[in-house]
């Protein structure tokens, strides 16, 4: 019993020390890339996309030119968003962190997570 308690205490200490190689401490809230911002857009201004269960949700969104899209990673593993046409490319980001992009012209943008290539989605940008 005492040994188990000691291990539990040590586990708590070690788990609290620093992040993970590919899983930084949750709650950082920092976006990545030039288009990013740590704060979510104000209500009504942008579209939210969740990253959950190794998938984007929703997988298709429609926004206006100038309207932001913000991805929030709700998984314990890292993800990123890489546009196939080069419109945006985030760094990998961890649980609780966000990344935002604001399109400047209409069209369709397909994107993918580089670690999980089956994780795909698209944005339709309208005038």
């Amino acid at each position, binding site marked *: 019993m005492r040994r188990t308690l000691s*291990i539990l205490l*040590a*586990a708590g200490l*070690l*788990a609290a*020390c*620093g992040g*993970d*190689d*590919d*899983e*930084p401490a949750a709650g950082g809230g920092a976006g*990545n890339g030039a288009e990013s911002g740590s704060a979510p857009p104000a209500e009504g201004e942008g579209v939210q996309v969740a990253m959950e*269960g*190794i998938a984007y949700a929703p997988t298709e969104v429609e926004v206006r030119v100038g309207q932001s899209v913000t991805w929030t990673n709700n*998984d*314990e*593993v*890292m993800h990123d968003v*890489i546009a196939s046409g080069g419109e945006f*490319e985030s*760094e*990998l*980001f961890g649980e609780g962190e966000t990344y935002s992009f604001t399109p400047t012209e209409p069209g369709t943008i397909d994107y993918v*997570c*580089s*670690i*999980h*290539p089956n994780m795909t989605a698209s944005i339709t940008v309208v005038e």
Partner: protein
Amino acid sequence: MLTWNLFHGRAVPAAGRPLEREFAAALAGWDWDVALLQEVPSWWPPALARACDAHARFALTSRNSLAPVRRAIARRWPDMIKSNGGGANTILVRGGAPVEHREAQLRRRPERRVVHAVRLAGGPWVANLHAQVRPHSAARADIAAAATAVHGWRNGGDAVLGGDLNVPDPAPAGFAHLGGRGVDHVFAVGLVAAAPTRVLDRGRLSDHAPIIVEVEPEVPVRA
């Protein structure tokens, strides 16, 4: 040639228990000659080698201080301690034992990162890299430093450089891209891909899919 990030021996979603046997069984069941493994719990390489009838050479990465304590916790609660159980990069070689193993430290902060490589008996050098996760500039710096190290080791001979390079478009100088998926890639000098990259079904093990890249000499040897 197989490359796989083992996610510190964990599954997605979390299994809530150690998965050493499952990872070993998966690796043992696939057809490969050399396996480049990243984020391997630091005490796993000998067991993986036994399971796969292979030789293991590994390089410690980060969070390996107080190893016995970390190991004891990770064996009980791998999903709680995550990478804090201590990590290593590992090269498994089936057939003859590697004749040489070298390692170069690429960075100490924010995480210790290394490139390590084996020289196969009568064959090329094969190097394994897990680059810094972010920013991309740091990953690219690790890739460049690893490429420089491997070029020094190979001394004009053939070489493979693969692993989890943590950028979708890595470009190590002097190496040709043989295959990859996402951030997991295989490059080589003096060798070419013999078939398209294959992605293996690993079920829920790890958050990375293992890939197989078949390589052969750039100039086929004539009988």
